[in-house]
Structures are given as C-alpha cells and as structure tokens.
C-alpha cells in the first residue's frame, strides 16, 4: 500500500510526475473499479429481461437496453393495492429526511460543542450514556418509543417520525462533532470569549464555519440513514407518512410473489439517487486546512 505524503503541489512540469503519484492514481482507480462491480451488475440487470437474467450471465451487457423496468419501478410496480411504483413515497421521504437531518445535525452539533468547550456538570456522564446507548439494538427501543410518542401525542405523525430519527441520530452526530471540536485550538475559543461572544455567538460565528467538513460527514451519514430508513417511518409515521423505502421493500420483498429482479434493481437505484446527489455535491464542503492560519504552533 503506497500512500504518499499529504498535499502535493502542482508541478510545473506535469510529465515529471513522480512514480508514486502515478501509483496513487492506479490504486485509486483500481479501488474505484472494484467498488463499482456490484453497481455495474445492478445497472445491467435493471436493463435485462427476466428471461436474460434467468440465463445467468451476470456480467454480460443486456441484449437490448430498455427503460421499461425503470419506468415500472417508478410508476407502476405493485406495492399493495396500488400499482403506482416508487413515486408514491417520494414526497414523504423528503418531508421526513430534510427536517430530520437538519435537526439531527443541529442538535448534535450544539451538543458536541457544549461537551467539548463548556464544563457542564455530568456532561461527560451524559455523553458516555448516550454513546453506549447508541450500541443498544434500536429495534428493542421501538416498543418503549411507541409508548413514549403515543403518550406525548406524536405517534403516527410526521413530528413523531422526525423525533425518533433525531433521537436515534443523536449519539453518532454528537460524537462526530465532539471529537471534531476537540481538535480545534482552544485559544480560538478563548479569543472569542474575550471578544465578548457568548455561548451561541461562539458557536455560530466561529466554530460552525470551521465545521464544514464535519457537517458534510454528518450530513452524508444522516441523509443515508434517514433516507434509507424503513422501520421508523413505517412504525411511527403511520400510513400517511410512509417513506419511499416502504414501497421499495414492497417491490423487492414479498414472501409469496415471484421476483422481478430487473425492476428491483431499477427501484433500488432510483431510491439511491438522492443520497448519491448529496455525496456528490458535498464535495466543496471538504475544504482543506479549516483551521489553517488560526494559530501559531
């Protein structure tokens, strides 16, 4: 494994690229190809007819490209009484994902900030409990959460789903931010306090702008979790707020039905478009040297 030392300057003479650099590209591309094999299989399968899939040539290109299965997955696959495909839950997925991700990151970032910069009594106990709680199989928590949300009147409402998502996201997002803030020079925090900035001001004006890479990571993580979530939406959303994954599952998983792999693949790929877009656009948030120039030494 060759990893060469960090940020490299662009050479004047592009042809003088050191061997190690070529090696890096070779490795990166090799890994990318390896990572892409399953995706390739999914895509070609989504274009194949069932006939062709049954014939078992996994890696071969389809005889003919037809968008029929994609169309079916989106528009007309049966998911129960309705045969309207995936699109049914699309809006719900947005309604759930956007506020949940936003709130989860907001709450987690503030909590992480408080834990790493402010000395609050029992804060570390709280964090430890939260983190260890994160390891508890969350399926086991569903029953108590059903009781809790129904007691506070959030059961089977959009707010209920969002609440549960935020609760489940809290340990991980808090961890991300707490650890991230721990690496920021403490003198910055001190300087801001001298400047008269209070609790919120320090957070919003100084630390948040420095956290963009971590916001991107937390966003990637939570968008994926929440967009792909099935159980929480199903149980806590009730029929009105069932996310797209419910349809996806209905297309993919049926105990007694025959399976149309091409439609399943198309459906899966269609469902993952949103997270993929998020990944791609998060690029510019991965800025280099967020704290550069802040302190000496």
């Amino acid at each position, binding site marked *: 494994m060759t990893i060469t030392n960090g940020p490299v300057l662009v050479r004047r003479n592009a042809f003088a690229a050191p061997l190690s650099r070529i090696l890096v590209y070779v490795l990166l591309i090799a890994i990318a190809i390896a990572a892409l094999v399953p995706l390739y299989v999914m895509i070609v399968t989504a274009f194949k007819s069932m006939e062709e899939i049954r014939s078992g040539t996994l890696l071969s290109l389809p005889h003919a490209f037809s968008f029929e299965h994609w169309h079916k997955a989106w528009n007309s696959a049966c998911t129960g009484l309705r045969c309207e495909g995936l699109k049914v839950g699309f809006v719900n997925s947005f309604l759930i994902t956007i506020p949940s991700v936003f709130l989860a990151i907001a709450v987690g970032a503030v909590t992480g900030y408080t834990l790493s910069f402010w000395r609050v009594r029992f804060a570390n106990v709280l964090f430890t409990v939260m983190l260890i709680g994160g390891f508890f199989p969350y399926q086991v928590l569903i029953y108590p959460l059903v009781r809790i949300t129904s007691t506070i009147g959030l059961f089977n409402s959009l707010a209920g789903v969002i609440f549960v998502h935020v609760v489940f996201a809290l340990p991980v997002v808090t961890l991300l931010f707490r650890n991230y803030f721990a690496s920021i020079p403490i003198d910055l925090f001190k300087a801001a*306090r001298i400047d008269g900035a209070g609790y919120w001001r320090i957070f919003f*004006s100084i630390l948040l702008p420095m956290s963009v890479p971590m916001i991107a990571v937390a966003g990637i993580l939570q968008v994926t979790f929440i967009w792909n979530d099935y159980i929480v939406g199903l149980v806590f959303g009730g029929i009105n707020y069932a996310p797209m994954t419910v349809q996806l599952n209905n297309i993919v998983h049926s105990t007694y039905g025959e399976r149309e792999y091409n439609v399943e693949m198309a459906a899966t790929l269609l469902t993952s478009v949103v997270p993929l877009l998020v990944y791609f656009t998060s690029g510019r948030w991965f800025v280099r040297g967020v704290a550069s120039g802040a302190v000496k030494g």
Partner: protein
Amino acid sequence: MTGVQLRNLAIRYGSVEVLKGINLEIPASEFIVLLGPSGCGKSTLLNAIAGLQDVAEGQILIGEQDMTDVEPKNRGIAMVFQSYALYPRMSVRGNLSFGLKVAKVAKPEIEKRVAHVAKMLQIEPLLDRKPAELSGGQRQRVAIGRAVVRDAGVFLFDEPLSNLDAQLRSDLRVEIKRLHQRLRSTMIYVTHDQIEAMTLADRIVVMKDRIIQQQGTPDEIYNRPANTFVARFVGSPAMNFLDGTISGGDAIVDGQAVPIAAGLSAPLADGRKVIVGVRPEDVTIHADAPGSGLAADIDVVEPMGPEKLVWCKRGEIGLSVKAPSSATVRSGDRVRLGFAEQKLHIFDTETGKRIQ
C-alpha cells in the same frame, strides 16, 4: 479607569503548580511589563486575569471588583494571544470587527475604528484576506489589531511584537505607547524584548520559579536588581558576575583587588563572600599595563553596528564588554579591564540577594 489586583493567586495544571502566591497591585492606567524566562507562567497569568484560566487559589480584582469568577467578556478586557488565535474562516476585516459587532457597536463606528486600526498597523491591503493567506508578521498585526480596536479598560498583550521586523516593531511600540497615553487604559504586557520592556513599562515585574522576583520601575530593575537572577535576566548582554571576597573595602577577585565605591562597601565585613556584578557597559578596556585593573584576554569581538561587543577571558572567568565601535581591539589581545566603582552590584554568594 480600572486597576488590577492579584491577591495570593495560585494556578495549577493538574497537580503541577505553575504560579503560587502571586500578589500584584496594578494601579489604573499603569503600563506593566511582565518579564521572565520562557515557561515561567506569564501567559498563564494573563489567561487567569482574562478569566480564561481556572484559578486554584486567590482573587483577581479588576477595578476594585472581585472578578475571580466573572465571565471574560464582563471583565472589560482586550487581549492579544501569543498564538494569535485568529478566526480562520473570517477575513481580516471580520477578525477585527467581530468583537465590535458582538458588542453591537454601530456600523459606521465599526468601519471607522477598523479603518483606523488597519491604517495604524499597515494592514489595509490585507483586509479581505483570510489568516491562512498572511505571513507570520501580518497575522501578528491582525491579532494586535483585534485587541486594539476594542476600547477596553484593561489590555493584555502576550508578546505582541515578537514576529515583526525592527522598524515595524519600533513603530508599533510607539503606537502602543501612544495608545496607552490616549486611552489611559491599564496595560499588562508580556515581552522578551529588553527595549520594549524598558521603553514601555511604568513598572516591570520579573517572574521566575512560580513567584515574582522583583517589581519596580525600569530604572530600579536595571540599576538595582534585587538578586542575581534579575540582574542577569535584564540587560543584554547579561551582567558579568565575579566571585569575590571582601577585604578592606575592596573585593578580591581571582587574587586581584577590585575597588568598590565606599557607599556600596560600607555594610560589608571583611572576609565575606560576595558576588560582584558589573554590566558590560560599565567595563572599560585599557591597554595592558601592570596594576591598572583586571588582566584578561580578548576572546571574540562582535560588531553590532554602533558598538562592539567584546568577550574577554580571564582563566575560567568570562566577561563581556560593550566598547564603542571605534575601539581597536582584536581577538587574542591581552588587555586590562577597569570597572566603574559606583556601578558595581554586590550580591550575597549564598542567597544571591542584593546587599545593601
């Protein structure tokens, strides 16, 4: 205007005591310079005054009020950090105006003050850059600007000029002095630069080994150092020390008598072991002639522009001498050194304390 008082302050990092029993009275509007070897706790003390460092024992009073447990922002202070601590995602302008914005100063007023400070610190062309795009000295100027732009009652400076070029340094030194005269704020200033200490300070505080060694006007510190540590620490090159024994008003050093002014030698009993201190500028170099001073060999001669630094040797003893650059001395010459009788400093050999 607000004075600062430290009462019996002690500060610990974990179990390590960094400062103890610090008592310091800083009258309002005084300009105080903290001097001390690296690691003696100067930054720590500034942090404590600012409220950024937990105090283990004692009290901090600012403007007569006990501020030991008060929020930094309510102490009415401004501070320049040794590590700069610039806000990395803000432009220079943002860095300068942040504190004012927080304090809800009106926009035109902010602009005015920022413009003024930027001009004073010669960072106007840099206002829209990010800290990462600045040179070391430029960063430091921004850090200074951030403190100066606020009209605080107490200013804390942690080695504000250390990365600047000589010219800018002397310009800023004058600027800070002027700022002090204009604002009459109390200023607490850490530096390693003798000239800064001497020219800026109303009073200098010399620290070492967790405690304050001496405090006094620059003149007192320079001319009447309380112990060998202070004597050696203040003044560059450092004071020369000679081990001697008192004999009839003279000090016998390495077998040769060094005359001491009568006023100084009065309290000294014959046979007492002392350390005789003499500053390089109080030594004169004569041609080698018997009887007229301490014989020594010239080791190294360092030209320093307006003058020469001459390092002499007499056996084990090393002595530095400041000579005019016109002096004709060469490495290897044998010379005689004369000491200004009145300017000698006598310390007790055991305790290192000044005798008088």
